[in-house]
């Protein structure tokens, strides 16, 4: 047998590095380096606007300051409630829509495309145009609500009671399609013969849902919620455009507060410590969540 002359050139490993090299470099430059730098700065009294002043090492002072500040805990609470309601609504509505779209009917594909549209818009743009929709005088949102039940005049963004809900509604409107798409992928992976077997075994529709559908989509839904949770923990652009954290600090999420401390008050060292705390929080929660998710998947 004739064997072709061995190709002489780069080894497989070298080719591999060549492919991933650029992205590793980019990641190091714009993600890892700033992270390390921020951790370093969090132990100093650095002020980025005070040029020429040499930052001094202050130990854990910044961290103690952040954790002892009551306002920070208020922001955390605002963030937590925002996350809780958005994730809950997106899970329920997303799964519901996925179940509907998983049926065969005319116009199914067109409808899916339409539902997915909000997800493709820029969050800042969404924030801006919802300020118009929420406008108490001419806004469509108030008109539609009053059409069904006359609440009289109300201001979604202006009222400190309604403003947190205004951002929950917009985020849910924008990102439910995401959970829906992932759930739909999960539903499509369930083989039809399982439903046939269940039907022959005389299970009703509810049992089919509980025994077959739900366990099959649950891992998918949890994954979608993980993505949404991480995104919403650091939610910034949409809320800034919509309410800029107001009224007062009713919708001031942790990330918005962080930006104010860092780039309005220029307390760089202090806000670096805050950022590190947020990072550790989400990293910790994320890891625990992934562990739980894998347990459920194995079940």
């Amino acid at each position: 047998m004739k064997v072709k002359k061995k190709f002489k050139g780069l080894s497989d490993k070298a080719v591999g590095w060549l492919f991933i090299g650029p992205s590793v470099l980019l990641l190091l430059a714009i993600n890892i380096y700033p992270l390390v730098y921020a951790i370093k700065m969090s132990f100093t009294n650095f002020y980025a606007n005070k040029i020429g002043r040499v930052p001094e090492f202050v130990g854990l002072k910044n961290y103690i300051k952040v954790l002892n500040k009551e306002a920070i805990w208020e922001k955390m609470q605002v963030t937590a409630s925002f996350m809780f309601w958005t994730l809950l609504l997106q899970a329920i509505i997303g799964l519901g829509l996925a179940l509907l779209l998983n049926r065969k009917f005319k116009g199914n594909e067109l409808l899916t495309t339409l539902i997915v549209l909000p997800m493709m818009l820029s969050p800042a743009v969404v924030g801006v145009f919802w300020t118009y929709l929420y406008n108490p005088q001419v806004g469509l949102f108030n008109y539609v609500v009053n059409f069904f039940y006359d609440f009289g005049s109300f201001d979604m963004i202006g009222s400190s009671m309604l403003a947190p809900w205004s951002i929950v509604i917009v985020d849910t409107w924008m990102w439910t399609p995401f959970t829906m798409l992932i759930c739909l992928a999960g539903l499509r992976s369930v083989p039809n013969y399982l439903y046939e077997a269940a039907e022959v075994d005389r299970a009703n529709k509810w049992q089919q849902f509980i025994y077959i559908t739900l366990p099959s989509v649950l891992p998918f839904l949890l994954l979608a919620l993980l993505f949404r949770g991480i995104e919403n923990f650091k939610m910034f652009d949409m809320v800034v455009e919509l309410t800029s954290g107001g009224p007062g600090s009713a919708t001031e999420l942790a990330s918005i507060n962080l930006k104010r401390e860092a780039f309005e008050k220029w307390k760089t060292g202090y806000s670096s410590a805050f950022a590190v705390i947020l990072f550790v929080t989400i990293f910790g929660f994320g890891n625990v969540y992934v562990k739980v998710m894998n347990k459920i998947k194995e079940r």
Partner: protein
Amino acid sequence: MAKVELKNLTKTYDKKILALEDINLTIEDGQFFVLLGPSGAGKTTTLRCIAGLEKIDSGSVLFNNESVTEDQPASRDVSFVFQQFSLYPHYTVYENLAFPLRSPMRKLPEDEIKTKIESISKMLKISNKLKNKATELSGGEMQRVAIGRALVREPSIYLMDEPLSSLDAKLRESLRVELKNIQTNLNATILYVTHDQAEATTLADKIGVLKEGKIVQIGTPEEIYENPNSIYVSQRLGSPKINVLPGSLFNINGNTSTFGIRPENILLGTGNYSGKIISIENLGSETVVAINFEGHEVLSSIQGAYKSSINETINFDINTNKVLKFNKEGNRINER
């Protein structure tokens, strides 16, 4: 258990592809009925129509003389062993077996469910697997669980779609025997689909042979074997396969276009015909000898081993009483 009848059943897929045409079939209460045919003949479709998983175009399905044609699968109360197992993947073997018993239409007390599952799992030799997840089983175990899930119930009819096809030969044989015992003990009505002729002959009280969506012959295994009404049916049963030869050979009289003769009716060492041996296959209890006779391959099977060698010329005779004669269309002529 019930008597199940199909009357003039016709089924098309997508209004174009004819899957079943004018099927008439009666499965008596307590009968083991086997549908035999190659893949694509419509065996599975027949089962699905009886289960109610497919809507039929015309005709009717009767359980105990009552029409269930318009009924949903759940109200027909059949049990189905699917070819692809279709166990519920997120649950244990126990939960899979309990599932049909926990249906709101049947709701048994839990301790009764437990006793039932224990006896069934013992019978199918899966007692030690009850706590395993359905996805952690081997193919054979999955198939036994699937059979068990059908057997825990006492439905109108058991429908089985090639339930043994994915098992290894040894297990298949033992389960075949077990299945026949279960059926006799329960006096169960079973409609069983297979393309395996050994399963068909060993299990069946009656065999229905399907060809391209039509029933071509119904009879006991002996009738189908001894007295097939066409070449097609004669080729369904018998191993080694029946010899199908042109009528001009061996001076078979009448207007026979083709005739068939089973290998055990070709006798070696005597007679006026002679040919060269092409191959000798020793299967243990029998030996299959292939002979070239005037350009045609003729198979003969004889008891025990056969001492001879390839290319040797050999004399043979045919048992003329056992010759099956067919006309140009492949149908049997002068049937008894």
